[in-house]
Every structure is written in C-alpha cells, then in structure tokens.
C-alpha cells in the first residue's frame, strides 16, 4: 500500500460499454453474493438440523408413547395422516430459518449499505431482484427437497414400528415434494416482506407473525363459513395443505395444490409490490 501505487496504470477492462451483460451474469453475481456471507451458511445449516431433527424427534415421541395416556386421538391422526406427524412441527419450525435467510438476502443489503453498490451496477433494479429470486429459489429449492425427503425417510423409519408409510402410498409423494416446495416458497414470501420493509428485524418479525401468530389467532375465530374462508386463504394456512395428506378441519376450504397456489400468489403479490417500490424509492 505504497504511494507509488497511486499512479499505477489502470489497465482497460476487457468488456466495453454498449453490450449489456446478460441475465446469466446477474445470476452469477447474486450467487456470489449469497454464498459469500456467513449468514447463508448458518441459516441453511440451522434449516437442515431443525427440520430433520424435529421430524425425528416428533416421530420418536409419537412411536415411543404409542397409546400412552391421552394419546388415542394423536394415534388416530398418525394412522390417518402420517405426514402430519413427520412434517407438521418440522416444517413449521424449519420455515423460520428460511424466513430469516429470505429476509436477509435483501434487507441485509440495506442495513450494510451494499445496496448502493448493487444498484449502481444494476440501475434498472428489477433485474437484480429477479436474479435474487431465481438464485434463492434454486439454492433453497434443491436443499429443501433434499431435506423434505430426508425428513420423510428418517421420520417414516422411526414411525415404522407403529404405522407403515411409504412414498407409494396415496398422497405421500405429493406431500413430501410439497414440503420442500412450501418451504422454498415461504422463504421467497419472507424475501418479499424484506423487499417491502427493508429492515431486517422488522421484516423477520413480520414473517414470523404470518407463519406463527396468524395460525394461533385464527384458531380463536368462530367456526363459521365466513371466517373459515378468510383464514383458509392466509399464506401459511393455505400453503401448508400441500405437505399434509388429508387434514380434516372445517377451516380447510382448498385442495392441497389450490392452497399452494394461493401461497404462490401471496408471494408473487409481495414481490411485485416490493419490485415496484424498489424502482420508485430512493436507495
């Protein structure tokens, strides 16, 4: 770092203005961004441990206490829908870690200030957000499917002594793939919230509110058709149908894929509004 460096020749860059770098370059750039911060490693590590860990824990508790005190109802549920035992708590908690990553991918750009460098490089802004969505969806999508199948195999092996469940049973393959899809899209949903709110803490709180608090509140609402329809279309409630085989609650007003579609629409809505604001707001 000597002063003599000051006048070192700055060699011309290879590329020249005029030929815009393609979307592939932006994907590469976002891949560099997401892999080069520790929060990605931490949250994804936590995601794998929490999801597979809880799938194992809940199935083990269920199997070990089979027909234990007050367990008849739970046992009946395990027989009717083993995926609710395998995925229920695991996905519920696993989505928290992916929400954190989804928020951080965009909100940490604002808190660190790197958003300025990003937007100077991609002043049209929307291609950057789109590349972020793609990279997150591909990275998290692949990992979430691996974790979903891992959770299923671990959970079904532990549950095997009480309930026999295999991927070839009706609805089970769909529920397992669905668990991975749900987790991925919920991460993108959190990214949409991060794009809107731009503050890490605020955005994570909001995502947690949607994932954890709304379902609890909705349980307190009266069991009428109006409230059931309202609650049934909430992002978490609708989306979670895709990783359950047959939930028998009067609050269910959608099929599994319809519910997943509703979550996808919520996510698209947030990202579109977020993208609009990203273009409009001062960075």
């Amino acid at each position: 770092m000597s002063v003599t460096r000051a006048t070192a020749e700055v060699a011309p860059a290879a590329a020249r203005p005029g030929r815009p770098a393609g979307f592939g370059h932006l994907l590469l750039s976002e891949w560099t961004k997401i892999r080069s911060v520790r929060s990605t490693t931490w949250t994804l590590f936590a995601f794998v441990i929490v999801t597979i860990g809880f799938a194992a824990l809940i199935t083990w508790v269920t199997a070990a206490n089979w027909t234990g005190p007050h367990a008849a109802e739970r046992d009946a549920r395990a027989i009717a829908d083993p995926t609710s035992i395998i995925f229920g708590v695991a996905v519920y908690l696993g989505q928290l870690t992916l929400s954190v990553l989804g928020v951080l991918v965009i909100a940490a750009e604002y808190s660190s200030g790197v958003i300025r460098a990003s937007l100077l490089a991609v002043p049209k802004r929307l291609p950057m957000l789109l590349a972020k969505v793609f990279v997150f969806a591909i990275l998290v999508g692949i990992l979430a499917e691996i974790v979903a199948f891992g959770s299923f195999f671990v959970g079904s092996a532990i549950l095997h002594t009480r309930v026999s469940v295999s991927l070839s049973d009706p609805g089970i393959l769909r529920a397992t793939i669905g668990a991975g899809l749900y987790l991925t899209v919920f991460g993108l949903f959190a990214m949409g919230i991060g794009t809107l709110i731009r503050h890490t803490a605020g955005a994570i709180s909001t995502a947690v509110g949607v994932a954890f608090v709304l379902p609890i509140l909705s349980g307190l609402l009266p069991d009428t058709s109006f409230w059931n329809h309202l609650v049934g279309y909430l992002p978490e409630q609708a989306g979670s149908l895709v990783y359950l085989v047959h939930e028998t609650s009067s609050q269910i007003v959608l099929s599994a894929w319809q519910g997943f579609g509703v979550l996808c629409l919520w996510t698209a809505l947030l990202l579109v509004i977020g993208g609009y604001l990203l273009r409009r707001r001062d960075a």
Partner: protein
Amino acid sequence: MIEVKDLTKRFGNKVAVDHLSFSVQPGRVTGFLGPNGAGKSTTMRLILGLDHPTSGSASIFGKPYASLANPLLTVGALLEAKSVHGGRTARNHLLFLAQTQGLPKSRVDEMLDVVGLRDVAGKRTRSYSLGMSQRLGVAAALLGDPQVLLLDEPVNGLDPEGVLWIRNLMKHLAGQGKTVLVSSHLMNEMAVTADHLIVIGRGRLLANAPTAEVVARGSGQSVRVRTPDADRLTALITDAGGSVVPGGNGGLGSDPDDKTPVLTVTGVPAARIGQIAASAAIVLHELTPQLATLEDAFLELTSDSLEFGHRIADVPAPATDGSVR
C-alpha cells in the same frame, strides 16, 4: 461528461438541491465544493440514479445513468456512505460487481493489486481500517475502467499518505482524459487538487469557474504593514490611491510583544508601499503580502448559505418545569 440541468430534489419540505445546472468536462479534476448539508452528496446520488429527482435531469454522455448498459464500464463512483457488506471479503465484493458487468474474474485481482489490497483481499471487510475501506471503494469505482468518476468526500478521515494517494490518483485519471468530479467541504484540499470548481450552498449554484478565478474573485490581495509611524504612512498610501484599515490578522512570524501599530493595506502592492516608506524615511517593522486563500473565497461565497451555522442560537433549552410526558 456529466450534465446537470435544472436539477431539484425535495425531501418533504426541505429543498436539498435547488434548480442546479452545471456540466463537468473531461480532462481535469472538477471540485464540487460546499459546506456540510449543501446538497453535494444528494446531487451525486441524483446523477447516479440512486435518488430520483423532484424535477430536472442529470445525464452522463447524454444519457440518464439508469439507461447506461453496463454502467460500471462508463461511470465509477466512490460514495461517502458505506456500501460494502462487512461480512463479505474484498475479493467477493469486487467479484459480484465484476460479474454484473460481464467482467472477467482476473479483473478483480488486477484491481486489488492497483489499490494494494491483494494481501488482505480474503479478509472480511468489517476488519478493514478506514484507509483500506477507501482503497476498496476506489477499486470498485475503477473496476470497469470508466471514463467518468464521481468521488464523494474521498479524503475524509484519511491519513496524510492516503490523502496524497487519492490526490495523485485523481490527477492521474484526469490526465488520461477522464471526467473527474470530486466533492469536498475542505477548501484547501480542493485548492491543491481541483482545476475547476463548482461551489454550491443550500442546493444552489454559487460559483462555477476555474479554481484560480474563484480565488481571485475572493477578497483580493492585501498587504500587512507594521510601522511606528502609522499616521504618516496612512496619509501617504491614501494619496497613492490605496486604502488603509488599522489592525490586521496576527500572521505567522509577527512578534507578539511588538506593540507597533498594524495596518492592512489594499489597492497598493507591497513593493510600492516599500518605496513610499523609504522615500519618506518611515521605518517598517513588517511588510507582508496577504494572499487571499480559497478558504476566504469560499467563506465569502457561502456565508449566506451555511446549513447549520445559523442554527446554534436556535437550540431550545430543555424543559425544566419537571413535568413528565
């Protein structure tokens, strides 16, 4: 080349940039000078498309920043505000920027060499000193070998070595025919760096002229004279067409114990004053030409437009009635 036309930016009721128009020419360092809060950073952010103007426009080579293809190959910017993620290494920071422009990975190492960060390129930037961060910012700005450079307060907080480095770099780049706009609130820094000055205050253009001209337009030259025979000399200088004011600034080298009266003379050069005194046999203890500095010129230009200077008296005293709100 940068062109700013009738640019205005409002934040709520506050006008940060007020109908500003100027152009920045290639091949020289243009200083963008103004007191704190004058709107320098906002103007740069408007040029770079980070903020949207309320009205007016800014363009680079005739195009708005946002419509440049691969903008980093045309414009490099070093912003005052931090724009790196502290958890990312310098190499990865430059790499993701290079990738957005389709630049090869080798370009990153090249730039790390140029700014002398090669050895620490694998460290997370939160451990960097201010000087190292600034070098990383320069590397990011020069990554695409741009023709236009915008540097916002680049020497702020740097040690003398760093200041010299930035100063030489800017002159070197301007010498290559690039357009260099550098903002500062330090007049003396600009005096030695900039060939041309754009001075703003409260978002308005105060001056747009070569540095030497801005200095000359300032208070002009005066001569500090110390003599025991003040009355007689005053009369003679006045006869010669000069004007004399008793007193003067305590300059360097004047003896604090010397109680001889001091005069400040304008309109007559020091040599002529010496002749007048000699021919009338008047003893002089001191005869010092006072050069107007850029600082004088700057203070004169911006005296009406200090953003914070006039507020000191307005700070309300805390409520002392003991009431709890």
